[in-house]
């Protein structure tokens, strides 16, 4: 029987969970093989140094050590960098191991292979490096002076400059009635997937066939690029992403260790495994953010925003990883936010420093943009003495349901910003809060109330391949899906996306179940293996459901079209006489004359009587290249209490109203919002990668880098009532993986500033630690006393 229940829009429990709650998941560190060796990297205790010599003799003589290898010993090409965003970009040469210079804490100079994990680590510690230390170049503006070069051959540390080119009359920034300029710094963040990275390479030496199992978000991109690095023929290389314990962008990369494991397995003819330690993760896995913006907003006295201009310095780190300079560029298209300025400008300069390379971190470019937009809009409101709600209301673009040109040059699929904002204001009881804030201020309470707004947009669903090409990205943005209707009535789905916690197995099953008239329990979703799902572009940039899910929709349509041909043949009617409904093809007006997909699947399989020219299977593959990005939007409001005596901030209320288009599984969408907001709150209040003057990462363990616990993260109120369908794809979906991380940081910081703005505080940077808030209050009061504007509160 066909299922007539509808699953899209339902909180279907996750198909993924049974193995995860019983300890039966298959993360990379659970993989083992006969004859398997372990590798460990020697990362010398230098930040910036010329290598004089590498002595591997002692390491080589250690118990269990099979070999010690330095850069020249393995025939590996440069690591992949696929986004040379300008014609004249300077690209640092980046190999798996450094041979001339150490350029950051995580640079490796040798790799030790041994029989056990511990022996490999012991061996790596025994590698002796003699080097001449150089001063570390850590600060962006210091690096930009080029007094000391990170890469001598490039001739400068300012390796890339990208300008949007702007739109509108730029002279407005000199002539507008109100012009506000501010500088905002956003510190580096460490992604902190709870599962560190790791990989296992194995193969059949005589056939030169190799498999890499890696804790990665991007098995498909890894296969193509690692084929290039290692010289393994692409058709003989398979990459498997097993169960992956979180990514957040940090596993959207192709790393030295993956190339080394493959190179060593190939050289030694034995499986080679590597598992990252947490300290190693903090220096050798990509960081996020690390930018400084000079921001200008031009407007009228009554609050209309006329122009927005952002000039950014972006820390690339010591090398480019896969996408590094593409991250700030990705933000370059959303600096108007949900507003409607007449003039737009964005440019950035990428600078190399002696630090871990930056790359995508949940939101990738868009959180950096949203933070500065929402900060400067609030500053503008304060400057003209208006409520930030009023200024936003005046400037939010009116709703539209067809793709509409944005001033940044792309086309926004659909939007209803005002509606999400109104709902958020209602949920948080804005007017009541303002009254409460007024009373507390009047009373001079120690704990002051702050209300922070963030109305945001995203650019998701990466991405139309032609646009990626125009932006000089090396790959496309399509994705693939295959549906196999098995003769038993069950369905196999193969997707090119590669989830690591997002619940694709469940969401994809809901899409196919509705499409084919079966239930999610009838469906198995396979992913993350280039041999099983060869057509894929993986998971990042909130792309999976709007590209991979849409591909699934088209594969469903292909299956249904073929099923219709077979059904018509079996029912001895014309295809035109058939209608789809209630999970089957039936004769119009005669619903009992019907064939379900499971029934047609078995006919297609035994093939006893198929229409002429019909191949005996009921399978279909579709590859979908989106015509546009998707553009979620929404409003987050954070309410904080700030203790004016200690500077401590407590979030007392958090409301998230996100419009991510059609929702397939509201339970999973809410979970994505919770996690995203938690990361955004962490960014606003706790997390910061700190380097000392000599370039050592001082926040080098989880005891120093403050990943928040259940005590710090607030309860988040979500609202899924706004689902403006995307016009980009037939499902109407937009994506939700990054919304929380994009929207939350300015909501929180705006709230903290709002709580103490009556004391004269106009700016507090991330993370708003108690010390930073306390100092801001002290400085503001000191200034007020000096300028004779009043006493202490």
């Amino acid at each position, binding site marked *: 029987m066909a299922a007539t229940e509808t699953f899209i829009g339902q909180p279907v429990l996750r198909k993924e969970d049974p193995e995860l709650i019983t300890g039966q998941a298959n993360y990379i560190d659970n993989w083992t093989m006969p004859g398997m060796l372990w590798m460990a990297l020697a990362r010398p205790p230098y930040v910036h140094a010329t290598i004089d010599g590498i002595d591997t003799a002692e390491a080589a003589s250690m118990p269990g050590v099979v070999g010690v290898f330095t850069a020249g010993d393995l025939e590996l090409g440069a690591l992949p960098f696929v986004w040379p965003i300008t014609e004249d970009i300077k690209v640092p040469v980046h190999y798996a191991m450094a041979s001339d210079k150490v350029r950051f804490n995580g640079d490796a100079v040798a790799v030790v292979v041994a029989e056990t994990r511990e022996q490999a680590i012991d061996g790596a510690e025994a590698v002796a490096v003699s080097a001449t230390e150089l001063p570390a170049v850590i600060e962006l503006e210091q690096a930009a002076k080029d007094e000391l070069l990170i890469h001598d051959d490039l001739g400068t540390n300012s390796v890339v400059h990208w300008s949007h080119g702007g739109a509108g009359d730029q002279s407005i920034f000199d002539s507008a009635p109100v012009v506000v300029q501010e500088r905002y710094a956003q510190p580096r963040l460490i992604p902190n997937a*709870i599962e560190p990275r790791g990989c296992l390479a194995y193969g059949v030496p005589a056939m030169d066939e190799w498999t890499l199992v890696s804790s990665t978000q991007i098995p498909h991109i890894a296969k193509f690029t690692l084929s290039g690095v290692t010289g393994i023929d692409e058709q003989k290389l398979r990459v498997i992403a097993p169960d992956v*314990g979180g990514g957040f962008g940090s596993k959207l990369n192709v790393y030295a260790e993956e190339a080394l494991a493959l190179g060593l397995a190939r050289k030694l003819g034995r499986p080679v495994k590597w598992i990252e330690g947490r300290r190693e993760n903090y220096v050798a896995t990509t960081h996020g953010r690390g930018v400084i913006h000079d921001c200008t907003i031009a407007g009228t006295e009554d609050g209309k925003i006329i122009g927005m201009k952002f000039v950014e310095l972006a820390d690339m780190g010591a090398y480019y990883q896969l996408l590094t300079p593409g991250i700030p560029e990705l933000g370059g298209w959303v600096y108007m936010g949900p507003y409607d300025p007449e003039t737009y400008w964005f440019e950035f300069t990428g600078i190399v420093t002696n630090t871990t390379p930056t790359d995508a971190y949940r939101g990738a470019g868009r959180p950096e943009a949203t933070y500065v937009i929402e900060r400067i809009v609030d500053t503008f409101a304060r400057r003209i003495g208006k409520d930030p709600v009023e200024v936003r209301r005046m400037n939010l673009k009116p709703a539209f349901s067809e793709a509409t040109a944005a001033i940044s040059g792309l086309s926004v699929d659909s939007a209803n910003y005002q509606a999400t904002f109104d709902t958020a204001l209602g949920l948080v009881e804005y007017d009541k809060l303002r009254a409460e804030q007024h009373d507390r201020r009047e009373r001079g309470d120690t704990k002051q109330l702050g209300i922070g707004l963030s109305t945001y947009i995203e650019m998701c669903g990466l991405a139309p391949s032609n646009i990626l090409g125009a932006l000089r990205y090396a790959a496309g943005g399509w994705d693939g899906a295959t549906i196999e209707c098995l003769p038993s009535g069950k369905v196999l789905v193969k997707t090119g996306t590669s989830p690591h916690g997002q619940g694709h197995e469940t969401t994809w099953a809901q899409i196919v179940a509705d499409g084919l008239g079966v239930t999610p329990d009838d469906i198995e979703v396979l992913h993350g293996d280039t041999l099983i799902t060869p057509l894929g572009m993986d998971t990042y940039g909130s792309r999976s459901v709007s590209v991979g899910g849409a591909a699934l929709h088209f594969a469903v349509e292909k299956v249904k079209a073929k099923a219709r041909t077979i059904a018509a043949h079996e029912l001895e009617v014309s295809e035109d006489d058939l209608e789809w409904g209630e999970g089957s093809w039936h004769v119009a007006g005669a619903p009992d004359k019907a064939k379900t997909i499971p029934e047609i699947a078995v006919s297609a399989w035994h093939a006893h009587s198929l229409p002429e020219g019909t191949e005996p299977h009921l399978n279909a593959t579709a590859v979908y290249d989106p015509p546009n990005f998707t553009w979620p939007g929404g409003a987050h409001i954070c309410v904080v209490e700030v203790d004016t005596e200690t500077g401590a901030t407590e979030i007392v209320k958090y409301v998230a109203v996100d419009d991510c288009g059609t929702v397939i599984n509201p339970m999973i969408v809410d979970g994505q919002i919770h996690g995203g907001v938690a990361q955004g709150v962490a960014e606003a209040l706790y997390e910061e990668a700190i380097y000392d003057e000599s370039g050592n990462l001082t926040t080098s363990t989880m005891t120093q880098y403050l990943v928040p616990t259940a005590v710090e993260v607030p309860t988040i109120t979500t609202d899924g009532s706004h689902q403006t369908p995307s016009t980009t794809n037939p499902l109407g979906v937009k994506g939700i993986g990054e919304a929380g991380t994009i929207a939350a940081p300015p909501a929180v910081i705006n709230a903290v500033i709002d709580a103490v703005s009556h004391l004269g505080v106009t700016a507090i940077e991330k993370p708003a630690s108690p010390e930073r808030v306390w100092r801001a209050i002290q400085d503001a009061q000191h200034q007020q006393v000096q300028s004779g504007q009043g006493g202490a509160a």
Partner: protein
Amino acid sequence: MTTVSVTVNGAMREADVEPRTLLVYFLRETLGLTGTNVGCDTSSCGACTVLLDGESVKSCTLLAAQADGRELTTIEGLANGDELHPLQESFRRNHGLQCGYCTPGMLMAAASYLKENPSPSEDDVRLALEGNLCRCTGYQNIVKSILDAAGSMAGAGGGGA
């Protein structure tokens, strides 16, 4: 080498290990119980939480030798045969997990805590989870799952491991 003899999930297990072997690697690599995960090297994340004589411990903070002669429960032993522990049911019902990597540690920490305090408040649960990091869920549905499980366990007259 040191001989370590323990009862794990009800079964006697014995093996010779290097004295420096941490309990978590003894469980994972010597005994093949890979459900317990390793997430950090500073006892910060709690992914490796197991029960030692019924109380939660971070198995990366102990040497295998320190568990000699004692009783261990790992995630593999939390269910009663085919019958899931109320916490396991509840985590699934409330979407208390995403990537799942912290989940075994969360479940073991919660199982231990609910024995100490069978009817906790939300704040109690949040405080009890302080030693366990999750990067996916924002904790909200983990807390909800534990409160829900506490409710169902009370309804069932206590129950659980």
